[in-house]
């Protein structure tokens, strides 16, 4: 027994528990899915026959191409939205910067599938916008026609990923980089091409690959827009219509996972060794200039146009939730509270379930994430990196795959006492949400832990506090901002998660909000209440996000008044 291994028993036991959890609820289901994909459905032998079948079926070929097309086009369209905004904020002294920054949190507040139906009503062939265009100009634009609709909805929701990453990359370029290039004779486009562009590229690629990944894996949006010839919807439909023994669902899952890994790998390669932290002490970002009168007008026009686009799902959803009948008209015929009344009468169960599931999942996430962060960064356990790797690995696993894996793995496992398969018990939904959101919480907790200097812990131990006392009195309180941020992010995203949930909900009474919205949106008469439920979801997530933001800001001010002042000066 030495001083290092002393006090390691607790972490070790904890690491074993965490490892088992990840093994049972992440590794085993995914491995099972992969295994089934490579297994002959009749003989059980290992084979590639399922993949051959997949690529010989024209529907699957089409789905495969469509998924790639939609993901790639969404990246293109998102870039078109994000590039001017990132450029304005980093190059000009522009009053609209605050608006642009707020755009960054919009996707967190509403997942794309919630707004999809509202977007169809606003931009569809007979939607408000096309009715107006037709009336004024005599033609219509197929915004929402087929795959266009998916691309449009996804881009509007996910372009902030590119915006945030690119803006961060641009504002991390120190002014001295630009000035030394100018000093050596570069200017204008040449300066941009040789200095600014290469330095900002990793940020852009990271954001773009994230968009690709999100769109490629998304199940809810195509389902709600009734687009079935894409990979994720096909996987879902095969499993729900043919059953969990059909190998095609598994083959698609493997392809989804492979593509996710590819996207993540691309982003990893883009960022590897290019951690250009070029900002020097006292330096700022690239030099900014003031806008001339007409330039300012043009900038505001672009920003407001994009803002309107981004808010259109919210606006449409609000109109839908208050409207009586909305069809072949620019606005609903009349407004009413009836949909909200319906929701509160019949659908409180969805809301309660969501608060319960997302709350529990987020709680599990922050507890596990704090423990994993501590184990990985503060102990010497030999396999600690694997724990980190497994927990972060959940990022690469699409919700559909988790859902299919759980159904396959836990259908045969009867939970004692309640005597029901684990795969159909509501707790499995919580577990799925927790696993899927763990990477977000972990990232927040690791960032928070890295802010805590080890000397602060050693000081406590030196004054007589044991490891566990130190964790309780020093580490966790100092991490609290990050832990809370992790909780809120996990909670907010889990409360509107659909892709894994939709496969695991076994009875209406166990269903959460996202599932309820999906159910309502299936019928024309359910759209009103569905939209009302969507608005409630947006409000819940919005309030949570706002509160965490406030809390974190206040904690920061409390602790470092001088630093805050100097940083602001």
């Amino acid at each position, binding site marked *: *027994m*030495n*001083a*290092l291994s*002393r*006090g390691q028993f607790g972490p070790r036991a904890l690491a074993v528990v965490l490892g088992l959890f990840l093994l049972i609820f992440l590794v085993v289901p995914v491995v099972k899915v992969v295994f089934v994909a490579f297994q002959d459905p009749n003989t059980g032998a290992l084979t590639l026959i399922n993949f051959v079948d997949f690529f010989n079926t024209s529907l699957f070929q089409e789905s495969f191409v469509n998924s790639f097309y939609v993901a790639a086009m969404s990246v293109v369209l998102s870039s078109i939205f994000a590039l001017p905004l990132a450029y304005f904020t980093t190059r000009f002294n522009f009053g609209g910067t605050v608006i642009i920054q707020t755009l960054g949190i919009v996707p967190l507040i509403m997942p794309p599938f919630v707004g999809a139906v509202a977007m169809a009503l606003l931009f569809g062939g007979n939607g408000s916008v096309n009715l107006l265009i037709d009336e004024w100009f005599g033609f219509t634009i197929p915004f929402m026609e087929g795959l266009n609709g998916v691309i449009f909805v996804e881009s509007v929701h996910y372009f902030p990923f590119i915006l945030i990453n690119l803006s961060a990359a641009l504002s991390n370029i120190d002014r001295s980089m630009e000035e030394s290039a100018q000093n050596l004779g570069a200017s204008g486009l040449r300066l941009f091409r040789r200095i600014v562009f290469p330095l900002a590229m990793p940020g852009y690629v990271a954001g773009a690959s994230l968009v690709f990944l999100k769109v490629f894996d998304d199940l809810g949006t195509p389902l709600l827009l009734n687009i079935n010839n894409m990979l994720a919807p096909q996987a879902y439909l095969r499993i729900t219509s043919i059953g969990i023994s059909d190998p095609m669902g598994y083959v698609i899952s493997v392809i989804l996972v492979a593509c996710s890994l590819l996207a993540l790998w691309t982003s990893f390669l883009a960022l590897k060794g290019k951690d250009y932290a070029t900002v020097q002490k006292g330096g700022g970002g690239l030099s900014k200039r003031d806008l001339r009168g007409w330039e300012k007008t043009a900038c505001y026009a672009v920003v407001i146009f994009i803002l309107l686009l981004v808010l259109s799902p919210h606006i449409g959803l609000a109109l839908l939730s208050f409207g009586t009948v909305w069809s072949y008209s620019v606005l609903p015929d009349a407004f009413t509270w009836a949909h909200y009344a319906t929701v509160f009468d019949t659908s409180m169960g969805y809301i309660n379930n969501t608060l319960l599931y997302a709350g529990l999942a987020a709680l599990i996430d922050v507890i596990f994430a704090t423990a994993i962060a501590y184990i990985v960064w503060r102990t010497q356990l030999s396999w600690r990196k694997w724990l980190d790797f497994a927990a972060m690995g959940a990022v690469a696993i699409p919700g559909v795959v988790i859902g299919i894996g759980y159904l396959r793995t836990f259908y045969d496992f009867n939970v004692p006492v309640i005597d029901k398969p684990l795969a159909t018990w509501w707790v499995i939904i919580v577990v799925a949400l927790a696993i899927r959101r763990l990477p977000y919480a972990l990232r927040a907790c690791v960032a928070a832990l890295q802010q805590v*200097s080890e*000397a*602060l812990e*050693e*000081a*406590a*131990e*030196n*004054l*007589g*506090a*044991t490891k566990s*006392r130190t964790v309780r*009195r*020093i580490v966790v*309180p*100092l991490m609290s901002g990050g832990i809370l941020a992790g909780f809120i992010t996990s909670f907010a995203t889990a409360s509107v998660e659909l892709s894994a949930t939709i496969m695991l909900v076994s009875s209406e009474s166990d269903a959460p909000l996202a599932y309820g919205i999906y159910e309502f949106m299936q019928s024309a008469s359910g759209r009103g209440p569905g939209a009302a439920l969507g608005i409630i979801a947006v409000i819940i997530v919005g309030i949570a996000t706002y509160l965490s933001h406030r809390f974190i800001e206040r904690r920061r001010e*409390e*602790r*470092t*008044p*001088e*630093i805050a002042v100097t940083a602001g000066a």
Partner: protein
Amino acid sequence: MSQHPEARAVGVTIDDITLSFGPTPVLKNVSLVIEPGEFFTFLGPSGSGKSTLLRLIAGFGPVPSTGRVLIGDREVTQLAPWERNVGLVFQNYALWPHMTVRKNVAFGLEERKTPPQEIRERVDAALDLVGLLKFADRRPSQLSGGQQQRVALARTIVVEPQILLLDEPLSNLDANLRVQMRREIHDLQRKLGLTTIFVTHDQEEANTISDRMAVLNAGTIQQVGSPMALYDEPVNRFVASFLGTANLVNGTLERSSDKAQFCTTDGIRIPVVDGEFQTGAELVALLRPQCLAISTSEAPAFEGTVRLEGKVVHREFLGSLLRYSVSVGEHVLVVDDAHQSGHALFDLDNSVSLHLDRDQVRVLAR
């Protein structure tokens, strides 16, 4: 803060410690005895292992592969940090930003389950001792660097540790404050009679504050002694050049009739006291800049000195003195000349004579 601190002071014994970070050896067979109540300094360049040695006493860092650490008569080698009762003041203070000053100082007492009333009294006393009682309810971020340093000291001494360890506590302060804090720490240590170990890479700091010090380099102890003894009687080149400026000249010992002489290949000859070295022994002579006098080449020889002829190649004005570099044969010697306004200067390329006080030359084995 105890009534009879001197009676309670304990020493530290480090017995043949060898320790490595992974494959990199950091401390090699280090043995040291620190007396009760002593102000002891570990002095060395960065990477010499001085902080590692200090943290070892506190129980942090890797476990030594051999050796023992004793505090008083108690062996602590295998004890966890929280079982040792040694107070460590960190280089960047490590004050907890989520607690007030009072809470920071009370922490150790709370961990020791001291009654609340006593905690309050002792925290007040400790804060009073460092002159910060009126800032008790502030947060550390609202204090200046020097004040944070005092809080860190108060937090450590309030638990009445057996040993006080200071890990480069002054390195984050500006020059004037450093001198002031150095005195405060010294006075506090005298008042408490607490055995104190101080780590620094700054030889001036070490000289002014220590009773004794150990010079470390590359994980081994080079020499232990009082600051003056180490300066005057260094045992090797490293100690000689780390403590102050030194001219180190390589040569051999030669004997003619009964006289021993230190001789270099380019003709410098210095008579030395005959003793420990064999004829032909490879030696190095240590000449401190202030033990050389500089004059014009026409000036007569001084009594009891060795005269060397050379040329000025560099001159620096350091305020209280002028520092000349003079080329003598193949050597360049640094010579200090006390500065007074109006005093004649030697310019570059001036031919000069150096007068070396024989008694001040120290000859070491190479």
